[in-house]
């Protein structure tokens, strides 16, 4: 996951003196400092917490998407952008349909689900209005349709609300190397009891994938769960046959890693230093400020 060329270039930068962050990671464009990424994540969470209106949310999402493109993650960024704006369009369209009709949002949503079967939608929207008139006490068959329509609307709104978090998370995950991450955590005074497991987790993921492939090969060799859906057919057996070798291997790897880490001096008391240099430059601060401003305005109700 760490690539040696960027690490060595970062070291060269630090030796050269005060170079800006934009020089780091030459192959993949400009990247923010890990702590700035963490701040963006916090902002996205605040956005989720304070139910900002649609316009503010769209502005924030555009701001969050920008670093992905700048970092050169075109495909990832485009996919997220298309998903968000499709959901946004869906929501706006359903809002408009609700405004034009006489409060029959259930009807319009049913029309959406039913693929535009107009007469059904019209009929059910008529009954929806009637059901509202009697304050939804009568449990008719259309109520179930209305509920289903609202659940669909709820899902689309819900997924759209999760999107800022998902975008910033994708950005943080795809553009941070292990050493940057560890360095940032140490700089933020996270205790070693958290830093070391985090390091091991990131390092161990590829090993799990590799082990899983080998286990599946071994199972296929013995004719166990060889078919496509065979794993699903005997779930308890597959769970046991896969997780036991994984755990066996995990214990051996943990022993080996412990020996290696202690040899490298991880157990020595005192402050540990990092090869990778991370630095907050003006760009990080500026971007944090740029992202904070619309959120603060939207929460304050100005925007």
């Amino acid at each position, binding site marked *: 996951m760490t690539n040696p060329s960027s690490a060595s270039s970062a070291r060269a930068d630090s030796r050269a003196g005060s170079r800006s962050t934009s020089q780091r990671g030459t192959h993949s464009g400009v990247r923010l400092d890990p702590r700035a990424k963490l701040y963006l994540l916090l902002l996205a969470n605040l956005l*989720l917490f304070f139910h900002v209106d649609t316009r503010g949310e769209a502005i924030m999402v555009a701001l969050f998407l920008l670093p992905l493109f700048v970092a050169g993650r075109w495909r990832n960024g485009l996919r997220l952008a298309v998903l968000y704006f499709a959901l946004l369009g869906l929501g706006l369209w359903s809002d408009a349909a609700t405004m034009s009709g006489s409060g029959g949002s259930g009807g319009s949503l049913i029309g959406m689900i039913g693929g535009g079967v107009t007469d059904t939608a019209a009929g059910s929207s008529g009954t929806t209005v009637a059901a509202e008139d009697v304050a939804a006490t009568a449990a008719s068959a259309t109520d179930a349709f209305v509920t289903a329509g609202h659940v669909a609307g709820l899902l689309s709104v819900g997924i759209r609300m999760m999107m800022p978090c998902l975008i910033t998370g994708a950005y943080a995950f795809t553009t941070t190397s292990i050493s940057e991450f560890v360095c940032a955590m140490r700089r933020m005074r996270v205790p070693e009891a958290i830093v070391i*497991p985090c390091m*091991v987790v990131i390092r161990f993921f590829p090993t799990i994938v590799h082990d899983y492939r080998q286990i599946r090969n071994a199972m296929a060799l013995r004719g166990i769960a060889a078919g496509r859906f065979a794993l699903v057919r005997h779930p308890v057996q597959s769970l046991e046959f896969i997780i*036991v070798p994984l755990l066996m291997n995990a214990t051996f790897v943990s022993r080996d890693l412990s020996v290696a880490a202690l040899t490298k*001096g991880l157990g*020595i008391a005192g402050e540990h230093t*990092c090869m990778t240099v991370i630095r907050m430059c003006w760009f990080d601060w500026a971007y944090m400020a740029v992202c904070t401003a619309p959120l603060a305005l939207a929460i304050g109700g100005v925007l």
Partner: protein
Amino acid sequence: MTQQPTAAPSPAPAAPQPTSAAKPGRLAIPDLISIGIFTALYFVCVCVATLVSTLIAGAGTIFLPAVAALICGPVFMLSVARVGKFGGITVMGVVIGLFLFVSGHFALSFVASIVFPLAGDLIARIGNYKNRVTILIGYVVFCYGLTGPILPLWFMKDAYVASLEARGKSADYINTLFSQISVGSFFVAMAAILVCGLIGGWFGQRILKKHFVKAGIA
């Protein structure tokens, strides 16, 4: 990772011993590495659980902790057997919470993933990490730490209700629409975690006895 001798010359003669030889009850570096590896396996199990629970139904994400509780038993039991010190379960939960947060989940999930594993750790500590019953109860409590990722569902509900109110729907209408969905689903999800935690923990202990105790690993 590398320790530069020129940076800190004074503490080196004071504490040259690696912490593994220090106090028996504290987490040492090998313990932390084991915890890291078991956390990675646990995280993979959580990812599988996410996949499974989304395949079951569109809104099946509320059963994510329950499905995870069902399949993570062996990982948890082996980690307790291997580490067996106070703090191990807590660190596991915190690291999972950190990864969920970085991968874009709600910050509240972080709170849940500290509080519940800590409680589970304390419960398992009563039996000195040897008693099967306290470990099982600890596992069930630990499983509630994963409720963090599904908490936004209830926040989303609030947002949707707010948007409905803005469109001029009556409060009665909204209440009848959501009273069943929210409260009912909440309790069903919580009860499912309890049941699945018990089953998964029992399965994990059986696996432990069948494979790892015999092999001398646990």
